[in-house]
């Protein structure tokens, strides 16, 4: 872990309140360069809330801070956060059903496109065409990487669930992110699809050294993929450590099994 020890994202003292409900309470953690950090916890523990804070969908209570490469994310607009190189794969499916796989992936590139309306009016004479070709090439590389050639020109709405998730993942990759937030990328997949997805995640991590923050319920997947794990329960961080440490941690076990005297009381 030594080589990866540089922190890219530091969250500290994050609290979030919806009316009287306290969704997050003084949570703090670091994500280090190039690692896969898993965020786990029972339903309602606040995992997705935490991702939403990083993404800028939610604004944490005053006093909380999320530093990404030195920039303060709290209070920033969502699109500015995305511009910093933070991409996200959503829970459930958030692809554009009426567009083809190819177009869905191309939307991931829009942020990198510089040409304007005027350029696209004179498509063949302007830089629009050249730029689009470069982006298309990158998208084709992702298609090749995710082995989705057969569905390149199919409408995403008619694809099976597992494939749609793969397209969603591909769209996030198309942004060439530095930090990838994965919110349950394997929910609802069968064993084979899960194994494929796990392999893609590992390959991205190995080849691109992309830093990842993974929320996932499947413990087998988490234990295999993650370098470190942060455990949340009722909005509080209850543990942090390597997969081996976490699987031995009595507090975590009781939180998951709901035993007497657990911290959730």
């Amino acid at each position, binding site marked *: 872990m030594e080589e990866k020890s540089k922190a890219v994202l530091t969250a500290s003292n994050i609290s979030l309140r919806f009316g009287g409900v306290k969704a997050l309470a003084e949570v703090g953690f670091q994500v280090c360069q190039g690692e896969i950090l898993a965020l786990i916890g029972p339903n309602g523990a606040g995992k997705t809330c935490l991702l939403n804070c990083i993404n800028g969908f939610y604004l944490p209570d005053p006093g909380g801070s999320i530093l990404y490469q030195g920039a303060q994310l709290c209070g920033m607009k969502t699109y500015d956060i995305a511009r910093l190189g933070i991409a996200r794969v959503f829970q459930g499916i958030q692809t554009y059903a009426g567009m083809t796989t190819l177009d869905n992936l191309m939307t991931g590139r829009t942020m990198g496109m510089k040409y304007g309306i005027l350029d696209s009016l004179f498509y063949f004479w302007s830089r629009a065409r050249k730029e689009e070709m470069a982006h298309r*090439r990158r998208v*084709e*590389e992702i*298609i*090749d*990487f995710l*082995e989705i*050639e*057969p569905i*390149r020109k199919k409408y995403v709405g008619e694809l099976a669930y597992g494939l749609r998730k793969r397209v969603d993942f591909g769209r996030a990759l198309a942004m060439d992110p530095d930090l990838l937030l994965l919110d349950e990328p394997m929910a609802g997949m069968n064993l*084979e699809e899960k*194994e494929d997805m796990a*392999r893609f995640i590992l*390959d991205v991590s*190995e*080849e691109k050294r992309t830093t990842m923050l993974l929320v996932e319920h499947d413990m087998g997947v988490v234990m295999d993929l993650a370098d470190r794990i942060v455990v949340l329960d009722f909005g509080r961080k209850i543990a942090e450590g390597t997969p081996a440490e976490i699987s031995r941690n009595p507090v975590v076990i009781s939180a998951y099994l709901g035993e007497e005297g657990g911290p959730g009381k």
Partner: protein
Amino acid sequence: MIEREKLLEECQPVLRENDLSSDYFQGRVRGVRDTLPKILADNFRENPAGLSMRKKDLGIWSGYTWAQVYEKVKSMALGLKSLGLERGDKVCVIGDNDPQWYWAELAVQSMGGVVVGLYIDAMPGDVEYLLTHSDSSFVFAKDQEQADKFLEVREKVPRVKRVVYWDRKGMAGYRKDPWLLELDDLIHLGQSYEFRHPKVFEEEVEAGGANDPAVLCYTSGTTSLPKGAMISHAYLIKGTIRWAAVNLPQAGDEYLSFVPPAWIAEQLLIASWLVFRTRVNFPEEPETVMENIREIGPQMVLLAPMQWQGLLSMVQMKIFDTGPVRKLLYRACLPVGYKIAEYRLKGRRSLPLLWRILYGLANGLCLYHIRDSLGLSKIRFGITGGSALGPDVFRWFLAIGVGIKDSYGLTEINPVTVHGRKIKPGTSGPPVPGVQVKVSEEGEIFLRSDVLFQGYYKNPEATGSMMVDGWVKTGDCGTLDEDGHLIIYDRMKDMLRLKGGGRYSPTYIENRLKFSPYIKDAMIIGGEEREFLFGIVIIDFDNVGKWAEKTRLSYTTFVDLSQKEEVYNLVEKDVLRVNATLPDHAKVRRFTLLHKEFDPDEGELTKTRKLRRGFLEKRYEELIQASFSGREKIVTEAEVKYRDGRQGKVKTDLKIRTVETGR
């Protein structure tokens, strides 16, 4: 030596029978040299800018000229040489059909090496056996999936010096391993070697001779461990010329490379690509073949019977799903196609005017569009081989205007027969020029030809038992019909008798069953101790699933769907249809729908997806006994080996259905 004039002379009768001009064919044969790398060198010299192969990569078709192919082959060959490849060394190649596969083969052969093709679904155990048995010193493996197999058996194959991979996807973690080498690095090695030793490549190519072994073709081993047939350059070149005499490929014909190059048929087509300068096209992925075939519009296609059948069921299912107008058109036009097909089969009588008009209509409204959407609109001939093509499949394709020629050949001696102008369904065509066919008294087929393998590698006993007085003993039961077309019934050992003495061929019945879109696979069980035939049927999950959706039948898994009463009724109809074509004693009396598919990974099928009957009969012994003792269902517990190597057990109720025997 390749005796070109003798070859041409032998081909004359067939050439006269063909209407197509044979000038191009004769010209190419007169100029042909005696090894594949030499022919490549000629193509490079005479037509460097000609387009030789295409591969769809990143969504775009990119082409390679003969000059580019030649340069790649040269660099790869010299790269291998600089790493210590010597004449006669064996090199394994495993991967999907890719330009790199072809280059690797020619690079190895240029240096006097021998190529051992492996099937992509080979398990690490098979890989180890083949590497050790063939004494391979290098390996070309496509990607991480294939390279992993070699890494797994690495300790047991000390002879292997390097594993070269050509797709770097997922290989990031392997780059530090000196045993693995990326293809681009091999090419660089070759280029710097050429700089230091110019002319070595040309000298090595010229040093090759017609009788050098070019390929070791391992037979798929239905019965025993795979045997490696040694195939020489002369075999490939002469074989492809004889085959071409019947079909006359033209310069620049588009060919889709899809069947595995580890199979002798694709090897002959590689030779055909070189000798006749056709253009070979590689699909983007095995899953995109149907899309790609349409973009290519090939003049010739070689598909295994199962794939032809797959095309047919795809069309049938799409028609099933389509709107009423298209359904009506299909139903109205197809019978016209069938009628015309019958006319054509009977001979070349001219059609009555009415039928000609009807055919024009049917073709314009429907048949042409089916051909077009299958990518077969430019096709001159489709070929099949390997096992028997169902006559129904054949008729359907003829009805939409695509003649499928059947062919017959063994790894050891090939080609043997192929249809020419006259296609006769149910036969494998007349012998190609230079091949003699003899049928023994027991009905076994014996063959003689000078396109003959050089024996099995390190297995002279097996070679000896294959040859009888210069004739090859095929082990196939068959006959020559009145037109001299070969008819294959089945393997000698697979023609079976029932207790009453009635003869039947399980394969024949199985093929007829598999024509149904709802049946994916079937195995017929009988034998001398049994009175009737019992069938284990595997449903086609996709198609039966769709049917269930239409009829509002709910189901969860394959196991659940296969045991539905309604599905049994559905399949029973198909069994009855097949039974109607069979003699009384050979009718299928009982059948069961199995709870899982036959799986090559579990040893139930061979790599070419043929049934391994002995194994299957043992595995499903309990089921078979239950069926012959008249039980209605059994509880079965099958051992299942998952793809990641774990083992598990599945417990299910299997019903056994008795088929109505009343007329």
